[in-house]
């Protein structure tokens, strides 16, 4: 049940990301819901679901994207893994500043890693469309927007955690 809800949530975020959000371009960028979602999930819940979300979310984004198939999947998953390693090794606290720092770092890493993949694909002439746009503007815009979205997701992931705990308790009580 929880897994099913999680998959529905990832599907919903993909649709919102690719069809609703592009209208609301701010700071020359739009927030990356999937990235903030998987990172928030990794921090607040567990890395396994975060990893699953990164692969599934990346797959769905690739499906609706003109980029080389797999770019979103690889970028999201690698970003999630790197952020997880950083959190488990260097971050002890979970306060507002560390959250902002983690999301900023994740966004920066995600964009740079994606551009690195584009560079590699371009080198082998495998890339299908153009990407090298005014990057720093977009990256900075992306960081700011992702931080704003993060607050929303933190609330939501906490809510979802409480819900799943209550749900599991109820199932246990019935059995």
């Amino acid at each position, binding site marked *: 049940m929880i897994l099913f809800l999680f998959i529905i949530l990832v*599907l919903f975020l*993909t*649709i*919102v*990301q*690719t*069809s*609703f*959000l*592009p*209208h*609301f*371009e701010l700071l020359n*960028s*739009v927030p*990356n819901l999937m990235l903030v979602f998987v990172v928030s999930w990794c921090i607040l819940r567990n*890395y*396994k679901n975060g*990893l699953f979300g*990164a*692969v599934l979310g*990346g*797959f*769905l*984004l*690739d*499906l*609706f*994207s*003109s*980029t080389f*198939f*797999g*770019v*979103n*999947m*690889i970028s999201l*998953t690698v970003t999630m*893994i790197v952020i*997880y*390693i950083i959190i*488990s*090794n260097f971050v002890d606290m979970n306060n507002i500043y560390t959250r902002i720092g983690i999301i900023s770092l994740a966004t920066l890493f995600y964009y740079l890693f*994606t551009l690195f993949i584009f560079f590699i694909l371009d080198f082998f002439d495998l890339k*299908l*469309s*153009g*990407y*090298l*746009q*005014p990057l720093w503007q*977009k990256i900075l815009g*992306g960081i700011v927007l992702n931080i704003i979205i993060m607050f929303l997701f933190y609330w939501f992931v906490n809510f979802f955690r409480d819900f799943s705990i209550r749900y599991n308790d109820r199932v246990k009580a019935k059995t």
Partner: protein
Amino acid sequence: MFKISQNKIFLFLISLVVIIVLITFHFIGILNPVENILLKVLAPIKSVFFSIGERVFDLFAFLGSIRDLAKENKNIKTDLEKSLVARARLEELENENNDLRKQLVYNKKSSLDLIPTKVIGKDSNNLSNVVNINKGLNNDVVKDRFVVVSDGILIGKVTEVYSNYSEVLLISDIYSHVQAHIKDSNADGIVSGEHGLGLIMELIPQDKVIKKGDLVTTSDLEKKSYDLLIGEIEEIDSGDNELFQKARIKSPIDFKDLDYVFVVKN
């Protein structure tokens, strides 16, 4: 160096292997049925969300523009006065044109055969200028076809086609290259995108005299051209030491606000 258990490393590696398998399956074609089902199911939902987003955006845009209404109104009044003068001139030209047509054998151009489609999404990566439309192979959409808005103004080219869904690379993308023609000076060149911010026409021969306001259309060299309008020249860059001239093109279309577009069929 890093504290990370072997189980986790194993899980990370498994994830990467799964990704590689999915990518391989995608390119071999094994995933095609699954992808087509997902696209078929999700495309209508995307279309609904796209429309909702458009309405919400329009509402915000309207609220934001209220304070500018007085200024806008004044500008519109001025434009209207200018339009009236222009209209009178146009009527005069129309009459003159009709007279000339009567004297010439006029071969009317065949009209464009268009497939109406709706924009249902945009690229998620924030870095490219691609839109998704709700028609595909089942609706005779073919790769490399031009895409226009209702007035015959070029906006892009079909780059990827699925059964009920296609991707259109906008001409504002840096990887879009369209052969173009400047009517007034009879000059040819290549129009490409400028980081999603505008259009630039390059490779215009130095011996051609171009001026601001000249109309730019698709060129006959493209073979599938029907004189689709691309835009008008806004700025010219013709350095003496350069082999070719460059011109910044202003498109009448707002590429961020596309709703219904048409794929040129013939």
